[in-house]
């Protein structure tokens, strides 16, 4: 997908100063579903956590107190800002050897009458920046109004994995914010999605569609592999274009193996002070083993936290089919393929 024209200086200027300041306090977590992004979000925002029952969508974890000075990081769990900016109407398409999202923008960007036309970029960029930043500022205000103690300039950690097909467009619109790509071995992502859609899996239950036949299994594997490759290609493109000091790539496997060191590095990058003991405590509180036994296991959101399960799950032919779709981004992310 074309990332569109560069953000114009006019679109960048003229914002409410309050919103402009907010932009530099945003951390966008991109990647793909089933990559541990909820887990990472919980750790970065601890002791705050996403809560759909709270008016702001944010509350304190039960039994936790806010730090002196208030919560420094607030979680934003899937605002779908990317999905409205670039709605995808079909599965990713192959183009020049890469998988690209089939978005309205890609189809219509050249049309002068299209709302998000390249030729009217200044107008829609300014408008969409304002819409997105206004929403995020509103979340902070609602959190404060509901009684949450929040620091004077909180960071918002935004989990937007399901919108990663448009991560390049969002980062281009908000160039002063931080980009965090949480990568996970695509083969494990495909395996995890397949498990979630298997009979009894949580996505099969939620969406009422389970994978039961061989044909459905093949189609789901193909869809998941394409979606992962598209998300990675797009976000890696965004990484290349974003200021290096505002960009980080973290691998799920590293976070799992070395949670304290990985989190310490991330907090430092975000400008948040956390002692080693604090990080150790929060990493322990959110570890796989801290999830109550009845809420983890096969078919649950917290499935196994074991990298490499794809080797057992897929036949040789299935592995070959997956590799044919995802080997390039796998290699770019440093995975053996």
């Amino acid at each position: 997908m074309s990332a569109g024209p560069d953000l114009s200086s006019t679109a960048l200027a003229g914002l409410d100063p309050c919103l402009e300041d907010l932009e530099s306090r945003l951390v966008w977590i991109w990647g793909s579903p089933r990559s541990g992004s909820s887990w990472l979000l919980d750790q970065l925002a601890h002791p705050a956590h996403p809560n759909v029952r709270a008016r702001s969508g944010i509350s304190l974890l039960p039994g936790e107190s806010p730090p002196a000075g208030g919560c420094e990081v607030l979680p934003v769990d899937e605002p779908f800002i990317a999905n409205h900016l670039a709605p995808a109407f079909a599965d990713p398409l192959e183009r020049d050897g890469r998988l690209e999202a089939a978005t309205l923008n890609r189809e219509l960007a050249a049309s002068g009458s299209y709302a998000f036309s390249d030729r009217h970029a200044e107008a829609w960029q300014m408008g969409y920046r304002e819409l997105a930043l206004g929403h995020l500022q509103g979340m902070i205000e609602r959190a404060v109004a509901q009684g949450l103690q929040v620091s004077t300039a909180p960071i918002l950690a935004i989990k937007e994995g399901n919108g990663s097909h448009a991560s390049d467009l969002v980062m281009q619109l908000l160039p002063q914010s931080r980009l965090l790509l949480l990568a996970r071995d695509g083969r494990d992502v495909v395996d995890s999605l397949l498990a979630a859609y298997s009979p009894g899996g949580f996505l099969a239950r939620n969406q009422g569609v389970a994978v039961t036949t061989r044909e459905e299994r093949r189609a789901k594997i193909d869809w998941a592999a394409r979606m992962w490759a598209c998300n990675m290609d797009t976000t890696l493109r965004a990484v290349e274009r974003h200021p290096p000091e505002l960009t980080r790539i973290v691998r799920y496997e590293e976070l799992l193996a070395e949670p304290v060191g990985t989190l310490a590095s991330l907090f430092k990058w975000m400008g948040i002070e956390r002692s080693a003991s604090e990080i150790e405590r929060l990493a322990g509180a959110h570890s796989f083993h801290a999830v109550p036994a009845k809420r983890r296991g096969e078919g649950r959101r917290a499935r196994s936290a074991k990298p490499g399960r794809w080797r057992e799950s897929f036949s040789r032919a299935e592995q070959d089919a997956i590799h044919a779709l995802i080997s390039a981004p796998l290699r770019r992310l440093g995975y053996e393929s």
Partner: protein
Amino acid sequence: VLDRLRRRASRSRSPHGENAPAASADPASEREGAAADLGFDAARLEAELIWLFATDPGLGSWLTAALTAPARPDPGPSCGFKLSGGGGSVTAIPVSRLSLTRHLAPAFGDPIGEDGAELFPATLNNYMADKPAYLFSAAASGRWRVGARRLALRRLHSTLVAAREEHRNLVPGLRMVVDESTGAYAADLVASLMPRSRLLVVIGDPQGELEPLPRCADGEGGERDTGLHRAARKWCCRLDAIARAHSSFSPERRLAVRREELEDDPLEAVRRVGAWARLGPSDERDARAARGPEPAGPSDGGKANLTDIERERLRQLTASQRERALTLR
């Protein structure tokens, strides 16, 4: 989800439709917020907009082109249209396939609700509105409604500026006919954002509009039946959203036109719409209108697509929406 959507739709149906779906508790401050610091007269621009939603996008395109003659929608130029002649007689310009609605409310599945009842589109908005973090959440409607209005007004102003740059002799006070028929399933959302503009809805007959559709889906028997059922529900969903939008607008700012009016006497029908939209008389418009729209129905010389049984099924599936359509004026 369905219960919430029904409650919201029911709230929106006040006698004069003053409370649009998901309307803000403070529409006045919302309008002010939406106009502040935009750098142009946003209230005037909003008043010059005519939002057009048709049950059949093809018919919406035809009426847009007729109303805005001698301009002709064209995706090539930045302004989105070309002019035949000098342009001095242009009183309205087309904004065709803006597709803003498809961004404000992306749809990804079949409509929600039971056959024969009011249907709602399977949009991200309808599924996610209860999540406070969601961009278009119910909890944050005061925010996003201002933001979405400002986005729309900025973008349409940009078209107006491009039109004036590309066609120097356009008259002041141009109307803009914004054809959003491809997003008709969410007409109520857009209409609720722009209460000071005009709303033009174009209603067709599902028998004619859906006759060619099953051809698009291969297959026979059950598969064909599923395709017809789905197409009928989508038509009903569009009609329901259009009707909700219509009921939310004040009577003097809304107008419903029917396909049969446009087919039976296109010149008179387009003149009636033009007068309502304060477009003034136009020979070019009359000339384009007089040719009339393509008739709905089978496109291959009258050969029927649907069997009698299928037509009867279609009639049953769309019965309550057809009845509802009759109430729109």
